[in-house]
């Protein structure tokens, strides 16, 4: 056989298993989500019918949808920069020798191996008014505690704190790997030239870590839309949807209200959001970063 042709065939054969699975569980469902969002929810009393853009109109009129979107943007804004900044600080800290480094590094990383759903119960105890740990510590310090999860103003920040706690250590690992590949000579050279620490970080380290930051950033963005496990235990999206996030609202609609078509409409929004983010990364950020 023509060797060139056989390369083509081999290439296709090798990607086929992955391709079939990806089509089945990513591409096909994307398409069918769009289609389903154009139909009404069928029950015994009413057949499912084509309703065009009607459920999009319903969605635009749905105050909870807007609240959930707003919450999700605040959630992203509150968790992404904080967890990245903390991850960098953590990585810089444990990248040099000091007493107890092994313990500190382990401490930073442990949240990553703990299932969100399991630790949510422990955080429930931390946040509980009256009996909870945080309020008892505050009381000990002579400060007044709060009903953290029971107030619309504190519930989302409380959820964010837990998310940052969960994510920062994971991102730290990537920065640690990034830092260790930077040659020590560079640090020495900078020191000899008398560069200040902040200057050194800003002008030397941070640019070198930019690919890491990009990778971590995309992960963090994705997680801010995907991570809803703790809501199941901590708040169920309440009080009055103050901590409800888009994916949790989708779950509620599909599996608690049995309205899969409205859930599909909401999913379309999530898909569009994620695509826009992915494309903007591709076009704007990627230009600044040199990929191998």
């Amino acid at each position, binding site marked *: 056989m023509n060797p060139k042709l056989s390369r083509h065939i081999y290439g296709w054969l090798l990607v086929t298993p992955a391709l079939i699975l990806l089509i089945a569980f990513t591409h096909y469902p994307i398409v069918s989500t769009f289609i389903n969002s154009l139909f009404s929810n069928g029950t*015994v009393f009413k057949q499912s019918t084509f309703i065009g853009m009607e459920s999009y109109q319903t969605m635009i009129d749905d105050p909870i949808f807007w609240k959930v979107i707003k919450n999700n943007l605040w959630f992203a804004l509150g968790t992404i920069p904080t967890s990245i900044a903390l991850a960098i600080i953590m990585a810089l800290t444990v990248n040099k020798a000091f007493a107890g480094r092994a313990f500190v590094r382990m401490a930073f990383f442990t949240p990553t191996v703990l299932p969100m759903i399991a630790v949510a119960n422990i955080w429930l105890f931390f946040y*509980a008014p009256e009996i909870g740990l945080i309020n008892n510590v505050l009381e000990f310090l002579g400060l007044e505690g709060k*009903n953290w999860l029971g107030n619309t103003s504190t519930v989302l920040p409380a959820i964010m704190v837990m998310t940052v706690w969960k994510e920062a250590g994971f991102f730290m690992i990537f920065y640690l790997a990034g830092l260790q590949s930077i040659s020590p000579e560079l640090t020495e050279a900078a020191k000899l030239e008398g560069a200040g620490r902040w200057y050194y970080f800003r002008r030397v380290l941070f640019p070198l870590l930019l690919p890491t930051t990009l990778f971590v950033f995309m992960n963090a963005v994705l997680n801010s839309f995907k991570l809803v496990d703790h809501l199941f235990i901590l708040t169920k999206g*309440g*009080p009055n949807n103050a901590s409800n996030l888009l994916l949790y609202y989708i779950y509620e609609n599909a599996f608690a*209200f049995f309205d899969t078509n409205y859930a599909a409409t909401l999913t379309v929004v999530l898909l569009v959001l994620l695509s826009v983010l992915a494309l903007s990364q591709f076009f704007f950020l990627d230009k600044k970063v040199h990929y191998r």
Partner: protein
Amino acid sequence: MKKSIIKIASSAAIALSLSISSFSAMAETELTMYYPVAVGGKLTKYVDDIVDGFMKNNPDIKVNAIYAGNYNDARIKALAALKSGKPAQLSVMLSVDLLELIEQDAIIAVEDLLESDEDKKWLKSFYPSLMENATFDNKKWSIPFQRSTIVMYYNKEHFRKAGLDPETPPATWEELIAAGEKLTKDDKSQWGMMIPSTGYPYWMFGALTKQNDQVLMADGNKTFFDSQGAVDALQLWKDLSEKYQIMPKGTIEWGTLRQNFLDQKTSIMWHSTGNLSVVKNKASFDFGVAMLPAGKMRGTPTGGGNFYIFKNTTKDERQAALKLMKYMTSPKIAAEWSIKTGYMGVSPEAYETTELKEYVKAFPYAAIARDQLKYATAELATFQTGRVRKMLDDAIQATLTGEKSPKEALEAAQKSAEKVLKAYRK
């Protein structure tokens, strides 16, 4: 698909072996029952014991009980199983799931399966208020089993210290507020009372509105969220923390409330009777249980789970499921179940058994839920009940967190509910 082939093959094999050995043609019926148990442990064991007892009496029926998590999980799972080809024949699900299940075309009415007079008598043997949520279109669709109401738990030692009589718990709202004011400490290290407002706020609200002589819904397609009675009830709930300051502000977590009570951070809590055995085992202090106090009248919604039979079943399976339900609700078993769990005995006959009589004599609080039944009303249940319930939940939480006034919040909820339910009226 594979499963059903195996099933057909195995039942064929059984039938074959039976005919060969020339026994009477007694084919085995296999039942799968979904059962909602949030925390496994003892409750699972009690159900297993009952099921084992049933199988001993009925060797021709085999029952697999599947413990599916909390009520919400159980309902989702049971419905999912119908679609995915691993169907169950019966399930215990929330009594308020009825209309949703009818709408999903998932169940048949139990009443339609009853033929003999004896069967019909059985259907009438339950407490009428427990049957309210089982009724649609003048037909009884489900059978009560794991049922509860809201009761008031109180700390007798706190009552003594505050100069209140621990044997006469507050019986009216005025008394409740007066007691609460005495029980609340100035530094808030001890609160007068707590009503949970996460998880199932609509349920607690059902009690407050009923006490105000107002129901929340009718026929599954009308709600009265913005009625004066409901608005006043919500105002009272808010006032408990804002005006009288005997309850913490913001929402109160359903799941941690019991711990608050056990840690003596609150003197009174309103909670499900389902907590009775745990409180009894874990309280390090003398506690009491009472009916909820009266506004214009006493009142509580019923709650908890009923048996349902799925539509996608054979005639034999339906009859076998019926047999199982009859066994599990028979006075003796119901009494045993109530003693072990704190849930209610579902029929008056259950409370006439010697076992339950003696238990109530030794632990009178076990009968509070039953005594309260005469003031009970149905739990909020409408078409698209999950969605409508959440509208009310949101309104309650918006009020308690100070985002909206009771009137504003409830009017908004009523408007959204109206939008959904309009379609279900003829």
